[in-house]
């Protein structure tokens, strides 16, 4: 399968700071690549750089169908949904049609082709409304409809479901998946939601501080983080250092997998000694932060009733719930860079 969109040695610099540096990225025709990363990692910057949008200083090449492409070619191929829904003055219908209108499609035709998308995103009944009176989620839906109506070869989505209510989100995930399967569209999806990545993306890239730290099939990336930063990103936020585990490698675990108890039960798994720093009751469960000899561990789960700060406790994790990390060596930071094209699912 060939690469639909990609880049080589892509660097974005603003005021002397390098915001992004991607050596190599390729996304195959029909594939969906999820990009996960902490706030400020450069996800939106990457999306804009790929579409050759915006005013930052960008060097390197963007590839479309394998050959370098300038802003003109990119603009013809791409439709982007920015992080904030940016609508024009005018009605919802006019906004939904704007993508096609901006590509030179006639007014009537553009409206005819975009209205079904408004319906698909559940805002068809708002057609005559002034776009500036929409609620946050409604505006986000209109922005999505506008981009999809274009039926672009490359779809760039920046946290497209952020403002949507949970139920719609679940439904849309399924709908969008079905739609994308039917279109010849390559999608790059920026998201903070691992479930979204899992549901939609064949492959996932973890972006940290402007660098792709890990890239591969979504299931693998989400379950087998390569280093500490990646682990943090996919929910393995507790780092268990050799100093406290006695193991050779650094281990990572999810807070949900860590149990706190006042006595040490010998058994399978890992046990770390520490003292309670704070206890935060969080509705469905309690979060207990435990200070250990090497950092603080967060434990999330039911129980934790008898605990108060200062109490000596043991944190236990089952062997199946820990992940072994490669050493967090900056030199290895780009180790996850892809050797070959991200494949369509």
């Amino acid at each position, binding site marked *: 399968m060939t690469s639909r969109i990609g880049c080589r040695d892509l660097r974005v610099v603003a005021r002397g700071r390098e915001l992004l540096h991607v050596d190599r990225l390729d996304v195959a025709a029909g594939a969906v690549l999820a990009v996960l990363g902490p706030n400020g990692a450069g996800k939106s910057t990457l999306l804009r750089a790929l579409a050759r*949008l915006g005013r930052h200083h960008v060097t390197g090449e963007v590839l479309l169908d394998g050959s370098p492409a300038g802003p*003109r070619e990119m*603009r013809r191929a791409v439709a982007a949904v920015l992080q904030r829904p940016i609508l024009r*003055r005018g009605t919802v219908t006019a906004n939904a049609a704007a993508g096609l209108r*901006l590509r*030179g499609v006639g007014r009537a035709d553009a409206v005819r082709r975009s209205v079904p998308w408004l319906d698909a995103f559940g805002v068809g009944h708002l057609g005559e409304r*002034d776009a*500036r009176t929409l609620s946050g989620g409604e505006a986000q839906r209109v922005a999505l409809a506008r981009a999809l109506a*274009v039926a672009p070869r490359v779809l760039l989505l920046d946290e497209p479901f952020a403002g949507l209510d949970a139920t719609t989100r679940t439904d849309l995930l399924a709908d969008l998946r079905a739609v994308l399967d039917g279109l010849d569209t390559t999608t790059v999806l920026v998201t903070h939601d691992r479930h979204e990545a899992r549901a939609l993306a064949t492959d996932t890239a973890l972006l940290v501080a402007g660098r792709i730290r890990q890239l591969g099939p979504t299931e693998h990336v989400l379950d087998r983080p390569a280093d500490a930063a990646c682990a943090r990103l996919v929910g393995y936020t507790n780092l268990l250092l050799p100093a406290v585990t006695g193991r050779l490698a650094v281990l990572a675990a999810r807070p949900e997998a860590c149990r706190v108890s006042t006595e040490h039960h010998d058994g399978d798994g890992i046990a770390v000694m520490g003292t309670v720093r704070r206890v935060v009751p969080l509705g469905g469960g309690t979060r207990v932060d435990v200070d250990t000899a090497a950092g603080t561990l967060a434990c999330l789960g039911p129980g934790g009733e008898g605990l108060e700060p200062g109490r000596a406790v043991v944190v236990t994790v089952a062997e199946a719930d820990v992940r072994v990390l490669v050493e967090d060596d900056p030199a290895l930071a780009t180790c996850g860079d892809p050797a070959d094209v991200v494949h369509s699912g």
Partner: protein
Amino acid sequence: MDVLLDGFVQAVQLLLGGDAATWAITGLTLRISLTATVIAAIVGVPLGAAVALTSFRGRRVVLAAANTGMGLPPVVVGLFVTVLLWRSGPLGAFGLLYTPTAMIIAQAVIATPIVVALVAAAVQQVDPDFLVQMQGLGATRGRALAALFGEARLPLLAAAMAAFGAVVSEVGAAQMVGGNLAGETRVLTTAAVLATSRGEFALAIAFGLILLMIAFAVNLVLTLVGQRQAVPSR
């Protein structure tokens, strides 16, 4: 105070009575000032947009010049253009002095800084991501800019009105480069000045009122054009 009332009555009489000279003067005024405004827009809109959207060398200088240029005294512009167009001047060969063309040139010079400064201010106020989003939907640079102008249509309208208002109401340059020749370069403002110097104050007021009607009509047309694809007020 009766002078003002007389002026109003006279304005109505002149227009409705079909006074040919008045209609000719009114027509010439519109033609000259609209042409000058359009020329100023052709030069000023791209420059103003460039000042707002790009960061070329000398951007600040252009902006400062435009802001300062809004204080360009018409009399001095008139003098300047006159000196250029004098027979002995560099452009004397064209014989443009005391023609409507000369007036258009002078008024375009007056209007251009106004357009540049106000367009820059208007465009600068639009969400910086607006252009990005439009291009991200596949718009060419031109179409994206058109969308941007549509978005900033209210302040752009105000800019156009400010420029048109400035030139249609000024008299210094019109007088000096046009010469206020009856039937050739006499416009409403110079006619009003003449009426004043003749002591016919009511007539002067009448010309002023006709001028305001013109400004209102232009404003109306611009507003209607601007609201063609507009939305209910917020």
